[in-house]
């Protein structure tokens, strides 16, 4: 797990820039969509399932395998549940105001 100074610095750049992007993008979301926002952002950090897969690839002993399995389960719950529940909420916002009457 030896990272070169260049890799570390690149990661730091990405980190800082991504933080600004997150701040800017979310500032423009109206209050009425804040609940789907929270749940949608929640789904995005479900990307941790990729991390769980990466540690599963190198898991050797039984302890590591059990922990990796658990990580994959939790990560999948986060990602699947997060996107599905957000979609359910946003589906209801889809109707145009006057279609109904």
């Amino acid at each position, binding site marked *: 797990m030896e990272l070169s100074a260049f890799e570390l610095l690149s990661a730091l750049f990405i980190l800082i820039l991504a933080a600004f992007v997150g701040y800017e993008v979310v500032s423009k979301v109206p209050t009425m969509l804040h609940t789907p926002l*929270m749940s949608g952002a929640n789904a995005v950090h479900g990307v941790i399932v990729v991390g769980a897969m990466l540690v599963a*690839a190198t898991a050797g002993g039984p302890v590591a395998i059990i922990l990796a399995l658990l990580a994959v389960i939790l990560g999948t719950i986060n990602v699947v549940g997060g996107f599905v529940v957000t979609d359910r909420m946003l589906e209801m916002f889809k109707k145009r105001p006057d279609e109904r009457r």
Partner: protein
Amino acid sequence: MDTLEVLTFLVWLIASVTFILALKFLASPATARRGNQLGAAGMALVVTWTFFTTDGLLANWWIIVVGGAIGSVAGWLGAKRVPMTAMPQMVAIFNGAGGGAAALVAVVEFLRDADLHPGELLPLAFVIATLLGAIIGSVSLTGSVVAFGKLQGVISGRPVKYPGSQIVTAALFLAVVGIGIYLAAVSPSIPLFLLFVAISLVLGVQLVMPIGGADMPVVVSLLNSYTGIAVAATGFVLNNYALLIAGTLVGASGAILTQLMCKAMNRSIFNVLFAGFGTGGDAAAAGAEGEEQLREISADDAAVLMAYGKRVIIVPGYGMAVAQAQGPVRELMDLLVARGVDVQFAIHPVAGRMPGHMNVLLAEANVPYDRLKEMDEINEDFADTDVALVIGANDVVNPSAREEGSPISGMPILNVDQAHNIIVLKRGRGAGFAGIPNPLFSNEKTTMLFGDA
């Protein structure tokens, strides 16, 4: 760098762009759903790519397949079955799952590397990122579980405090920092690392227990941000830019959302986290109730009053959602509109259990979203409104927020008390979620209709 690595970077880039767009498209209800689906597609891409291209993963394929199947079924069922009123708890539990996964990834990485290089110090950047992932992920996991319990009513919603609890929290925090420094600078001892994780888990419980149920949505939003940071830390450890970018995005967006929510309640984040809001509310509420003279109105009179008004503003609260009254409220709106009454909904920023929650609940009942007005838009209109119908809302219309000395002093409220007539639909005579008495209910213009909301 071989072709496969280049392609992997490009996949990360595509996925990151879809995540950013998923959040960006939430700026308008018209594009929001498409954005979310785009994000899901990006996620599917990066997961599939990782599965087929990671060295050694195909040998351990069953871990992914079994884990993925269990997780998908659990996540899918939870997401499809949860009633809209229980959304904050659901977000809490999904967030806890993500935090737990991040903590586990950090733990497995640490154990593996400590095992590969026994007795050696690990690279400093690696240790710091791993420890951060482990502590923040653990706090997020147990904190979210407690928040879920409080929102679901499994755990008491009252702030749970015992003498010296803040000292215990501080001691736990210092212990974690101390052990962390030892692990990084002296020796990466595995037993000590496990102790580090165990204390972090306790810390999550310890931090959330003293916070009242009414503040849980803020806590969920904050923990959401924590999980994002934990994911970013593991992205650092695994040198995976998809994790790094997605985690940071969520970390930043969760932080600003938390800030917005605090602002809507006119409180600072420190106040939310450490003040144990609502502690003394009980006694005050009980004392005030005896003196209040509440006037009741019959349902028929209420109907006549509204039907002959020119403008009616409906102020929905969480009580309406609990009683599943969104449908009947919409029918009432249709009837009134058919009679030529101008009907609008006044949505307080924290109506429901979290910002925007009420919009979701009313959208579910097909209330057109152009009738929903935000507080700043509608507050001036109350003065020439014939009837303000308050349905299951309490604290957000409590005029004592304008005066000094109330626990909610300074919180922005809806100016319901300026309307010509006020009808309050309520389940019972008790105080609201925050446990504060509401003088609006004994106002001479106010009539109460006790019943299903």
